[in-house]
């Protein structure tokens, strides 16, 4: 088995708000190995970004990690001093943020923001850093790299900003890359280019990647393993093939059914009915049960534990429990699809 | 930028005390306006000028008698004619000889309306000035003019060098006959004078005199303490105790000529009621006020103060005495408290202090008094126009001559101008005129005393106090001559 790079155990993150304390991440555990890509998918607002921000220790000021343990290469991140944490960030672990407009400093040039991690962690001279920045921008497919260095974020298009973010995160060849929807604003050709770049680096540097994305195509392409979250909880986790071909949790199934198909013009979307519950909503049992077609009485009262569905595939659903003696895969899929 | 004051360099080793530098640094609160006696009319300018220029006559600070200075002697050939003999062999600092022509030039320039001299009125009675010969000047007045010699001793009547006046701007580069000559002037900052080696009366001991502008008196006192300056004057009463407590400093006080008084707007009907004036006068406790001045005021009812020509001791208590009960009664009987009274006070000197205390005392007596404060220029306008009920005025008598006080301030000729009290009393006018047109000094004195008493009897003006002139000097300064009118002379000063 590969070496574990990131290990998150029982992470609980909550927010203080006017309405009281809100748990955005509820008892989530996962790990990322070296040279491995873990994709997190899940409904928007389910806590993916907050999970990754918890790992970086960059939560908004009203958020705190209430519980859990986060280890990078066996070292507990929570125990590090701020200074030690700083030296890790951007260097050993880096992050691509979701919203590129607000995540880039509006008053600093692209060049300055790009050079910064190079200065900091690699102690490059300005000229070297400049060259490397240009190279980085090339790699993320940003045209006219030299000129871009002197531009400000507002002069770039959304996709360009996102690529700047990516270049910045990759600058120091981190061992752990957290990418929060890194390619949403990119067209597919560039997206492909970037995914290839990440893959290259991953292979070359044995980098671990924690990627958050909504694009199932991307998941299929880059993920080694997939983790599905729902309403702050991890509900399913497994190797990518397992998840796509043998989804266990009704939510995962629903998710896959809502992916638009490019190749089929007559395809009809099938959204999961209902909405994700609010963070502070009291729901007994499985948090998905109000929207679940298969909800049983048990689901309404008891929280499903994580069941092993074999092949490194885990799911938190009572249905899985019932089917510990595995039923015919196809059969169940059709049952579920009804 | 030119001279580094002694105090600031003291750190760098020039503290050696063997040879004391013969220099005096004087701090004044404002800069001189200019250094031409003809074109200026402010005390700072005149204190600089009085070291550079000299007059034909000067008043002896001890005897208060007028004595010749540049003049040798004088005689009145008739009431209208003054023949003045000048000293011989005196030269201006630029080498121009001092002679009758220079005197003629100076006086004519001062009188000439085209000059627009602020104190042209000083020599207004002069009709002609004739240079009889090199050292003899004949002045003819339009009418017999008693205070002429006093007027000639006024710093604005100092003699200027005609050649210099024609060659340069005396406002900037003054040339006179005095013991010090002009060296440099950094406007707003300092004026430096140097010893006039060729001074006719023997060169002074001091090499240099610096006038430094230090607008804030408390800063000046601090500088006096540190030695950055070594001479200040006109100490305010609030600061007196602080200055006196300084070890290296000596304070000189001398009864002076300034007078501060409360006056009525005599053009107003209410103020023309003698009872009203009497009520006001008896409501004001001047003794209590003078006590607040920490010794920097002399209590006397007399309008012409002890240092002024025309004063008579009997006038000290010649006014209405403080009698709060009487005041209250008068106010009540006549309903003086019904109408509000506007007490105008300029925002300088001690006027606000007077106003606040007087207002409280008048209120005590039942008057209804409102203070209105004003800055100086506005005050001058307002008071001149008579837009007030009561106000405080002051007069710093440079010539120490009573006529100089009464004529501009109370003679009906000057209503609308310097007679801000709008006082008009034909009897008084006559006495003042007589004091002016009489040449015999003894006679003049009695006219003045009579006029003085007349005003006191009428409660026309209520004297708050007579000023005390002060100077604070570094111990090392000796021989300062301080005049009752606030002026001083450095001719005989040495530093030890």
């Amino acid at each position: 088995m590969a070496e574990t790079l990131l290990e998150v155990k029982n992470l609980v993150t909550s927010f203080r708000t006017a309405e009281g304390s809100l748990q955005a991440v509820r008892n989530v555990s996962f790990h990322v190995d070296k040279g491995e890509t873990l994709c997190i998918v899940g409904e928007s607002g389910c806590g993916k970004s907050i999970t990754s921000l918890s790992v970086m220790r960059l939560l908004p000021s009203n958020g705190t990690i209430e519980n859990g343990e986060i280890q990078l290469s066996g070292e507990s991140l929570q125990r590090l001093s701020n200074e030690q944490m700083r030296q890790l960030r951007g260097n050993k672990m880096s992050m691509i943020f979701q919203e590129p407009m607000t995540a880039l400093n509006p008053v600093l040039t692209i060049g300055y923001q790009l050079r910064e991690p190079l200065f900091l962690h690699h102690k490059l001279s300005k000229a070297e850093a400049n060259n490397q920045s240009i190279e980085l921008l090339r790699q993320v497919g940003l045209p006219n790299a030299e000129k871009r260095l002197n531009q400000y974020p507002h002069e770039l298009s959304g996709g360009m900003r996102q690529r700047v973010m990516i270049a910045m995160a990759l600058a120091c060849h981190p061992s752990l890359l957290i990418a929060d929807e890194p390619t949403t604003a990119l067209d597919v050709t560039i997206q492909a280019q970037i995914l290839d770049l990440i893959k290259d680096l991953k292979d070359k540097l044995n980098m671990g990647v924690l990627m958050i994305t909504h694009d199932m195509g991307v998941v299929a392409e880059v993920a080694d393993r997939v983790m599905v979250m729902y309403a702050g909880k991890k509900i399913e986790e497994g190797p990518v093939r397992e998840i796509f071909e043998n989804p266990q949790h009704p939510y995962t199934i629903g998710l896959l059914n809502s992916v638009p198909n490019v190749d089929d013009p007559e395809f009809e979307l099938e959204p999961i009915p209902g909405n994700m519950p609010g963070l502070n909503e009291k729901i007994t049992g499985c948090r998905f049960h109000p929207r679940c077609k298969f909800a049983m009485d048990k689901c309404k009262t008891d929280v499903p534990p994580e069941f092993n569905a074999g092949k490194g595939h885990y799911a938190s659903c009572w249905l899985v429990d019932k089917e510990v003696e595995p039923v015919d895969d196809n059969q169940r899929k059709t049952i579920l699809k009804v | 930028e030119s001279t580094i004051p002694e105090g600031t360099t003291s750190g760098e080793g020039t503290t050696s005390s063997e040879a004391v530098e013969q220099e005096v640094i004087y701090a004044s609160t404002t800069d001189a306006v200019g250094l031409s006696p003809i074109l200026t009319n402010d005390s700072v300018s005149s204190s600089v000028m009085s070291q550079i220029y000299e007059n034909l006559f000067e008043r002896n600070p001890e005897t208060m008698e007028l004595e010749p200075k540049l003049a040798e002697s004088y005689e009145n050939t008739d009431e209208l004619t003054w023949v003045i003999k000048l000293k011989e062999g005196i030269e201006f600092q630029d080498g121009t000889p001092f002679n009758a022509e220079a005197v003629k030039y100076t006086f004519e320039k001062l009188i000439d309306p085209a000059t627009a001299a602020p104190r042209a009125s000083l020599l207004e009675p002069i009709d002609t000035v004739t240079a009889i010969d090199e050292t003899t000047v004949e002045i003819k007045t339009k009418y017999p003019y008693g205070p002429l010699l006093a007027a000639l001793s006024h710093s604005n009547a100092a003699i200027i060098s005609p050649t210099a006046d024609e060659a340069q701007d005396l406002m900037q580069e003054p040339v006179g006959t005095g013991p010090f000559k002009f060296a440099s002037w950094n406007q707003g900052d300092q004026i430096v004078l140097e010893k006039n080696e060729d001074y006719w009366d023997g060169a002074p001991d001091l090499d240099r005199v610096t006038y430094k502008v230090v607008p804030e008196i408390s800063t000046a006192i601090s500088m006096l303490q540190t030695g950055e300056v070594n001479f200040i004057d006109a100490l305010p009463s609030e600061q007196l105790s602080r200055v006196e407590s300084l070890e290296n400093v000596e304070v000189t006080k001398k009864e002076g000529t300034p007078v501060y008084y409360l006056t009525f707007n005599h053009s107003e009907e209410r103020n023309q009621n003698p009872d009203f004036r009497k009520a006001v006068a008896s409501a004001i406790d001047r003794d209590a006020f003078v006590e607040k001045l920490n010794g920097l005021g002399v209590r006397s009812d007399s309008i012409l103060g002890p240092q002024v020509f025309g004063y008579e001791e009997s006038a000290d208590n010649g006014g209405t005495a403080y009698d709060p009960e009487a005041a209250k009664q008068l106010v009540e009987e006549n309903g003086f408290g019904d109408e509000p009274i506007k007490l105008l006070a300029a925002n300088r000197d001690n006027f606000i202090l007077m106003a606040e205390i007087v207002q409280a005392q008048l209120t005590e007596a039942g008057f209804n008094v409102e203070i209105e404060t004003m800055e100086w220029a506005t005050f001058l306008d307002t008071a001149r126009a008579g837009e007030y009920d009561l106000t405080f005025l002051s007069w710093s008598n440079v010539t120490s001559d009573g006529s100089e006080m009464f004529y501009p301030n109370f003679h009906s000729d000057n209503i609308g101008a310097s007679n801000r009290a709008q006082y008009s009393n034909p009897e008084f006018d006559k006495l003042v005129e007589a004091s002016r047109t009489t040449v015999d000094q003894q006679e003049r004195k009695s006219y003045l005393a009579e006029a003085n008493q007349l005003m006191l009897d009428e409660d026309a003006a209520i004297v708050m106090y007579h000023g005390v002139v002060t100077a604070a000097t570094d111990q090392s300064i000796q021989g300062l001559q301080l005049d009752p009118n606030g002026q001083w002379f450095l001719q005989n000063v040495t530093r030890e």
Partner: protein
Amino acid sequence: MIALIIRRALQLLFLLFGISFLVFSSMYIAPGDPAAVIGGPTATESDITAIRDNLGLNDPFLTQYARYVGNAVQGDFGYSYQTTQPVANAIMIRFPNTLKLAIASMIVAIIIGVITGLISALKQNSWLDISATTFALAGISIPNFWLGALLILVFAVNLQWLPVGGMSNPFYTIDGIKELILPAITLGTGSAAMIARMTRSSMLEVIRADYVRTARAKGVKEKNVIWIHTLKNAMIPIITVIGLNFGFLLGGTIITEKVFAINGVGRLMIDAIAARDFPMVQGSVLLVATLFVVVNLIVDIVYTYIDPRIKYE
């Protein structure tokens, strides 16, 4: 940018025109007669008339104004009523002192202000913040004359480290610097207070922005997160305040100039107003206005460097 500068220069002309008119008319309307001040309490009717005639004050208002403008356009700003000296000279003698003082106190203000402001913002609501706030408020509530006197008492009179007052040495000499220290502190505290408060509030506005988080994610040192990533974004109001205060200081600050016996423009102007010395008031106001426009132009240009999104076309 050049266009901006040229445009401002043209606007300045109109501004100067407007302000000279305003000053002229207000001096005309406001009570107080220059001739009466020159004449003093002793002046007689005829004295004053002669002075007025001499100064041309008996001419109609518009004639006077036209004459002034006519001369001013030719670079002649007239002669002081009081000293009869050229106004331009009088101002140029004082201006270097005021400039020195303004720059020195601005340096003091910026250093103290920005640092205390940052401390307050970073340690928001802690005792450090409260003390910094109190310090700032003391800075603005303590009257300058009082602070100045206190500093003189301690540092000049008792310790004798620094001179009490005056400003006569070039600023690059030791003496020149010594002379500047106390007045600069006295004058700087007020501005420092304002800058500190502005820095604090402005930093708090941006300190939680996403891009600050990005900077942290890059592992940027906390020092740089503050000074570069946050402060630069918070700079607009701070720069505004700095510019305003600097403009204000350039106009001369009467109290400090008085307390420290500094021969500056502020004192000149206030004395001129008191004496109704119209040409002198005009001259100094025009100077202040020009300086103020220049400072603001610089501030406006600095804006575009601080925030590249700002444009003026």
